[in-house]
């Protein structure tokens, strides 16, 4: 490892050097700014040439795993191929240069596209209305629970203080409920992976505002009693919230609206293949049943009788939960989702569910055959499933973390580990529909070889990765030392 391979952009900085061509032409002064408001010392951004910068960040990119370079069976995250056309077409100059506050006559192409996206999402989820404005799944969740709260409040039903969340839920669910001013009541999952109906019956009451559910659930199985759950919650006066994390599994097969959900969020960066981008931007469109329509977050795209499209705002929707961003959400991400949906079309939607489910069930069968234990062996996999290493952890000390890290050496991104929390030593595995049988077979072979290796040489597995630029990190010391910005005096 040469020093250069660890260098920061600041190490490449040389006083007096700059990427001259990137800055505007002749310098002006800004003489009218009063001295008392002026900056005295330069901020000390890097001083580097264009080639320095291009080489540095190209090299950094090569230190990443990505879908374009590796199989990424990351459960709950739907790391499917991101078609290149989606990126190219969302970055056409007309879209890229359009100001969000441009008048309607300079926005019709974009707004028509967004209107159609709303309509397609409405159709595929079976809801009555859609707002595209939430900027990520968690913001979609926020919008959803805020709408539940606004609904009860509008009815003068102010005693509902609780949101019910299964113990297997994503961490964003309880965090969102709290942000919306609710208390959280957790209910257990039964031995076969479904919601414990008795516990649910005991939990609901006049204090119940709603329940947040993922279906297929976070344990990778379809919640078979969803009809009963909906009846129990609705009878108690609560509403049903659908966390769209696992929508990929059921696209075109069963719709949240038909299952009885009142409000849903979709992760367009999962189901509709917009890029994860190393941690965002996402897009968390929300859909609602008829009774929640008045509360949708603004803006929403509407079509006038004249055929003109426009953004409906607070004045059109006086009961709206309001605005969630300065403009209209992550427009460029929404365009990518639109392109994806148009390329897939109606049959393509259904194929997403079919082939993601086929791949998951195949991988589940093959891994079981290779000696791995399934968390719910009697259940069908949906688009994902859980392997548990409880037995191996006891026998040889092999943990989910060890497998995850050793897989990196084999050139596979790790599955999701230690989520959901209720299954010990678990790997949540989601292959997605875009992977071929050969890729899945290669992954099974790698898993089998790690299992075999762990029986004769557990230390090598436990100290993985070995073939990456870094071994396992000491995160505890990192959190204690807390070096979060570069200072020359503490340089490498």
């Amino acid at each position, binding site marked *: 490892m040469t020093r250069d391979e660890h260098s920061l952009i600041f190490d490449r900085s040389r006083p007096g050097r700059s990427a001259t061509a990137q800055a505007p032409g002749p310098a002006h002064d800004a003489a009218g700014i009063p001295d008392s408001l002026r900056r005295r010392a330069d901020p000390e951004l890097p001083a580097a040439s264009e080639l320095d910068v291009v080489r540095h960040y190209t090299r950094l990119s090569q*230190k990443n795993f990505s879908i374009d370079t590796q199989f990424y069976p990351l459960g709950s995250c739907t790391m499917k191929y991101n078609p290149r056309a989606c990126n190219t077409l969302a970055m056409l100059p007309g879209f890229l240069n359009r100001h969000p506050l441009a*008048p309607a006559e300079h926005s019709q192409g974009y707004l028509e596209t967004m209107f159609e996206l709303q309509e397609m999402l409405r159709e595929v989820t079976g809801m009555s209305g859609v707002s595209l404005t939430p900027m*990520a799944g968690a913001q979609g969740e926020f919008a959803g629970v805020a709408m539940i709260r606004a609904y009860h409040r509008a009815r003068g039903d102010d005693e509902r203080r609780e949101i019910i969340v299964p113990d297997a839920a994503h961490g964003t669910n309880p*965090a969102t409920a709290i942000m919306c001013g609710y208390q959280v009541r957790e209910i257990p999952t039964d031995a076969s992976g479904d919601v414990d109906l008795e516990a649910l019956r005991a939990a609901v009451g006049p204090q119940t505002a709603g329940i947040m559910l993922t279906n297929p659930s976070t344990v990778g199985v379809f919640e078979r009693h969803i009809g009963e759950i909906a009846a129990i919650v609705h009878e108690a006066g609560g509403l049903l919230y659908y966390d769209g994390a696992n929508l990929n599994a059921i696209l075109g097969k069963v719709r949240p609206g038909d299952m009885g959900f009142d409000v849903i969020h979709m992760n367009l960066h999962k189901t509709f293949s917009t890029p994860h981008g190393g941690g965002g931007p996402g897009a968390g469109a929300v859909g609602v049943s008829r009774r929640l329509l008045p509360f949708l977050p603004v803006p929403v795209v509407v079509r006038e009788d004249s055929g003109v499209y426009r953004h409906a705002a607070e004045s059109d929707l006086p009961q709206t939960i309001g*605005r969630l961003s300065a403009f209209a959400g992550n427009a460029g991400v929404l365009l990518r989702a639109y392109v994806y949906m148009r390329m897939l079309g109606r049959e393509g939607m259904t194929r997403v569910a079919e082939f993601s489910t086929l791949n998951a069930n195949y991988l589940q069968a093959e891994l079981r055959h290779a000696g791995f234990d399934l968390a719910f062996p009697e259940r069908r996999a949906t688009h994902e499933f859980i392997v548990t290493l409880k037995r191996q952890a006891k026998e040889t000390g092999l943990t989910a973390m060890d497998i995850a890290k050793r897989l990196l050496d084999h050139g596979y991104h790790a599955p999701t580990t230690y989520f959901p929390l209720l299954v010990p030593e678990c790997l949540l595995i989601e292959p997605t529909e875009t992977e071929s049988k050969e890729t899945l077979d290669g992954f099974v072979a790698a898993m089998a070889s790690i299992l075999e290796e762990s029986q004769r040489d557990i230390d090598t597995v436990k100290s993985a990765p070995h073939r990456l630029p870094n*071994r396992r990190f000491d995160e505890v010391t990192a959190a204690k030392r807390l070096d979060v910005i570069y200072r020359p005096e503490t340089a490498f």
Partner: protein
Amino acid sequence: MPFIPHTEDDIRDMLQQIGAGSIEDLFEEIPADLRAPPLSGIPEGLPEMEVTRLMQERAARDGAPLNFIGAGAYEHHIPAAVWQIATRGEFYSAYTPYQAEASQGTLQLIYEYQTMITRLTGMEVSNASLYDGASALAEAVLMAVRINRRSKSNRILVPGALHPAYRATVRSIVSNQDIELVELPWDERLGSIDANGLEAYDEHDITALVVAQPNFFGVLEDVDALTRWAEARGVPVIAVVNPVSLALLKPPSEWGDRGADIAVGEGQPLGAPLSGGGPYFGFMTTRREHIRQMPGRIVGRAEDADGRPGFVLTLQAREQHIRRSKATSNICTNQGLVVTAATIHMALLGDAGLKRVAEACWHNTHQLAARLSRAGIQPRFAGDHFHEMAFDFGPDAQARLARMSRAGVLAGHPLAAEYPDLANCVLACATETKTAGDLDRYVKALA
């Protein structure tokens, strides 16, 4: 099949291994009465070529007007290298860097980003970004409530001259947590907060003061006086700043005697195209002592088992996937890809480049003001401005704007809807992208 690689043989072999007769059998656990009807509302799939044609037509329909609208999203030149590198598959299609060993590229980039953005704001620590400027301010308000434990009122002073959409966003996000937003009036003549007006709150329990520099009208605030008022009362200051302006303006860390406590803003001017309002990113920086109250991802330097340096996501115990209902926020994502672009953008421009951009913005906007003045249109406010100004277009402002739009010039953002008192005013901005010829075209289109 689009994006699905399976051959007929693959499907047969796979079903055989599973022990299922057909793909349909795999859905047997879904109750029959819940099965979806055909998705008749979704059109048939189209080949890439046809979707390309469709999108090109849609994009072209919106034209290429000469744009002088800012109001929170600003047109800047973005070096070609920025998005070419940001959209490399290794950045574009990577997940959140939870597996640190397989994500050193993204992690190091965020560490560099955190460094650059703290150098710009002068603050001590930064997170990996939030969704946008408006939602970052909402998170800052929630954070200030956590920091200021002494205050019991949850009352936040917010300037009336703060971006109206920011005020609306903060209201939507914090309204369920018993937080009260109190609007401070702006000075009728100057367009900035009336610092004397703060005296009305001298005896009140105030949880935090928000100060925007420049404010929505492009006017520069007396940030020192405002910050000192808060300092004297132990009230945390939340700064909302434009990152390009920071090349010229005093960083929030130097406001007053102690500096602001939290500095947030819209990152879009650092390399994100206008793109219809997003994706952008919100930045958030603060004092080191408050880092555990900061929401969102944070990258820290670490050492691996061999003592080699590298980077990890740190202080994850603040976050929803660990703390669940006790997390600092429900936020999960950062705007990774846009932050990637912004980091490359800042590295390319450097101090000198960013300063030139800021100066050219100041210069062009003031040039526009001079030309409009000769045409009989005056700035509405007498305060000092950065790169945006409210102009009084007279009683036929709306008609004039519409006419100019038809002529291909977006003359600015009308203030009538958000500020009835400023019904004739138009907020206009001329960044470094505007030439003298563009300014001439603006004036010509006025007539």
